[in-house]
């Protein structure tokens, strides 16, 4: 089973890279771009076939390693074939 995990900075946490991207977009003439935030996308292939068990395992992975919950949120998306 394939899963994708989006890791994003929590609201209120400063994102200097996002700000730099926002400024660069403005300089390229893309107007109306507001509040760019940069995150991470992690793809995981699991041998688990039960979606509930897979989600539980992925949550554990996020809490223990993949995300730092002091500053980051994570969203797990299980890909159905």
């Amino acid at each position, binding site marked *: 089973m394939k899963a994708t995990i989006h890791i994003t900075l929590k609201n209120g*946490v*400063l994102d*200097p*890279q996002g700000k*730099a991207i926002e400024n660069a977009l403005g300089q390229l003439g893309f107007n109306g771009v507001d509040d760019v935030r940069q995150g991470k996308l992690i793809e995981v292939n699991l041998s688990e076939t039960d979606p509930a068990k897979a989600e539980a395992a992925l949550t554990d992975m996020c809490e223990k*390693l*993949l995300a*730092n919950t*002091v*500053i980051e949120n994570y969203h797990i998306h299980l890909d159905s074939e």
Partner: protein
Amino acid sequence: MQASVIVFPGSNCDRDVAVCVEAAMGKAPLMAWHGDATLPKSDLIVLPGGFSYGDYLRCGSMAANSPIMREVVAQAEKGAAVLGICNGFQVLTECGLLPGVLMQNKGLNFVCRNTRLTVTNNKTAFTTQYMADEEIIVPVAHNEGNYFADDDTLKQLQDEDRIAFTYAAGDNPNGACLDIAGICDKAGRIVGMMPHPERRAETALGGEDGKRMFTGIVEALS
């Protein structure tokens, strides 16, 4: 007294810090490899600066989950003194021995220069040889030194007098909350700091401001 320096793949200040510990203690510390599942009982454990595991995922996150860190955490919980410098500080926050997180520098640049620090707590196991609020010069060299914690944690650190070092007024190199350069645990035996005391521990290096961290902890543990 037994001291250990933990070496991760990508550590690059381990030998410098070993020189400082040996100079203070009169005996070379044990160099312990990240993959070791056991660590001889140590009174002092140093997590050195560098780029452990290439800073993959988040600085310090892979090192925090390495086999040796289970031993470091276990010994820290039993009262061993622990010093995390730069990447070592990042490892300490990632493994939960210290609160908060070191984010990317606000200015998006790697900063490598001397900083003026204020010793805000001279009662930790490492800082007793400094005067209260003494200003010292210690270099930083990092890309992720921007200390961040939520407001409750910051207030708790202030209330419990757990901010060990701050950057002096106007000298914050990375945007850290409350100008925090280093913090400690409740007992003052685990200290994490972004500046590198081992890089200013001999006159040949421009000054000896950092040396008292090492002579201080050896004195405290002797």
